[in-house]
């Protein structure tokens, strides 16, 4: 469905994607995984024909340099932070996308209904929350029932609750024949939404594996979200950092990056330091 051959992209002499090749078969879900700056978003932009590049990309046989319009007609795209027209309402935005794709305007109300956007349909996009905007972006990407969904870190700008809801929504969109390409640095999302993982670093492919073997192959760590009384969050984070844990204040407590075997140790450390652990949750 998607063939990327020797893709190279440089910005002002700095190579951000370096001789990358991979294929995505019909119905396959592939994650481009890597840290910020790995080149994930650049690959997506090249597939969409937004930026010039060296190498060849074909989407269902359409060369994205020569037939980028035909290639894009098969693609639904969900960006990291949806950039939509603030002055337009939800319904107007969906209608605009329908018109640009020559789709029936009946899809506006259908899509709004399906994504719980019917009630605020007359709200301007500028007045929507981040989660609602992302749902709208997902709705737009689905209007043409595309064969390919390109998801560029679709949950990274959302709060935790909305992240989980959006990931569940995206999972429900998988169907036979539809290919997914997801860029993410969130392990849970990669495992949940994809079958195959391509790891990128500094624009180069540094490995690939199935998503089942993902955590063991790459020694992935988990996130431990610990809920504490509000006044204890800052001192707890300071103590954890001093003890060598990578942590940050988060919500009503702290968020720590730990290996699978360290989870209990971190909780014991907090308990021994006389912090009142009210609750905890493990994210992967």
């Amino acid at each position: 469905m998607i063939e990327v051959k020797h893709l190279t992209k440089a910005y002002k002499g700095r190579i951000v994607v370096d001789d990358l090749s991979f294929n995505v078969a019909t119905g396959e879900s592939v994650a481009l995984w890597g840290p910020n700056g790995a080149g994930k978003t650049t690959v997506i932009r090249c597939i969409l024909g937004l930026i010039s590049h060296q190498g060849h990309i074909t989407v269902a046989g359409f060369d994205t340099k020569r037939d980028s319009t035909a290639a894009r007609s098969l693609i639904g795209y969900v960006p990291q932070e949806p950039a939509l027209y603030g002055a337009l309402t939800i319904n107007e935005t969906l209608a605009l996308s329908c018109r640009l794709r020559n789709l029936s305007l009946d899809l506006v109300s259908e899509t709004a209904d399906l994504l719980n956007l019917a009630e605020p349909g007359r709200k301007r996009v500028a007045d929507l929350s981040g989660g609602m905007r992302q749902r709208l972006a997902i709705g737009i990407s689905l209007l043409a029932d595309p064969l390919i969904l390109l998801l560029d870190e679709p949950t990274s700008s959302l709060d935790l609750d909305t992240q989980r809801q959006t990931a569940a929504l995206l999972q429900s969109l998988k169907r036979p024949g539809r290919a997914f390409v997801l860029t993410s640095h969130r392990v849970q999302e990669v495992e949940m939404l994809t079958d195959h993982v391509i790891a990128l670093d500094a624009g180069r492919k540094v490995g690939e594996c199935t998503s089942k073997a993902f955590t063991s192959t790459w020694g992935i760590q988990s996130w431990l979200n610990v809920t504490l009384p509000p006044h204890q969050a800052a001192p707890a984070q300071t103590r954890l950092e001093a003890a060598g844990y990578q942590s940050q204040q988060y919500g009503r407590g702290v968020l720590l990056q730990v290996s699978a075997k360290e989870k209990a140790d971190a909780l014991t450390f907090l308990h021994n330091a006389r912090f009142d652990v009210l609750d905890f949750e493990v994210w992967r």
Partner: protein
Amino acid sequence: MTIRIVSFTGSNRTPPRNYPPVVIASKVIQEARRDWWFWTYAGGFALLAAAITVTATQHRTLTSSGGFGRALASLIALVQLVITLMSLTLGARQLSSERESKTLVFLLTHPVSRTQVLLGTFAGHVAAMSASVLLGFGVAGVFSALRGNPIDPGLLLRLTALSCLLVAATVAIGVLVSTLVQRGSAALGVAISVWFCMVFLGDLGLMGATVATQLPTETLFAAALLNPVEAFRLATVISLEGSLDALGPAGTYAVDTFGRGVAALAILVLGLWTAVPLALSVQVFQRRDQA
């Protein structure tokens, strides 16, 4: 907030036929209708047009029976100053601000070509600005009628049509600026500089050059035609049967040489000032990375 898990199957309905430039132009008009800046510009133009008409029609004796009165002359000057500024800045703001706000990516991830996006944006702005011109001249026409000294509707229509040509040329130049300059604020600055050169420096520079270098009249005429604002002035004065004195030596030479065909020549120049910047914009827009 809860999200229902959905099974999205899409639609198999017969698709309607929409032409992307028309869709994008409609979107630009829709946005303009809700844009505070656009209404400030349009309202300002309408107010000025009304004020000029009221002032010019105060003394009936100063409005010639030939139709090319003070009111029309003042409206032409107003178009040269205000409409040119509005069109240039709105044109220059569009693509660069879309690039900054990343809404350009929204458009370009749809199955539309870059040329279609650019032409749709151009057409939308020309339509919105032309509506603004119609509003202003409509107000001027109503006020002149209320003052008991109505401007000839035929002349007003011709002035409107010629003003729309100037709008098309200056929006095209604005769009070219927005394709060349990446940042919105910089594009706005360049657009204002271009406006200043076209409206003030062009005229003064030409006069200065004539005095300093004793430019032959035909060269002066050719140089005047290089400026779309001057071409507009030439076309309107000739088309509205105005006094040739208003055109200076270059205009008199043009009328002597080309007769009334000079209006057609000036309109052709305005057409070129639309087509050439648009063609250049398409070239630049297609080559540059847009994300």
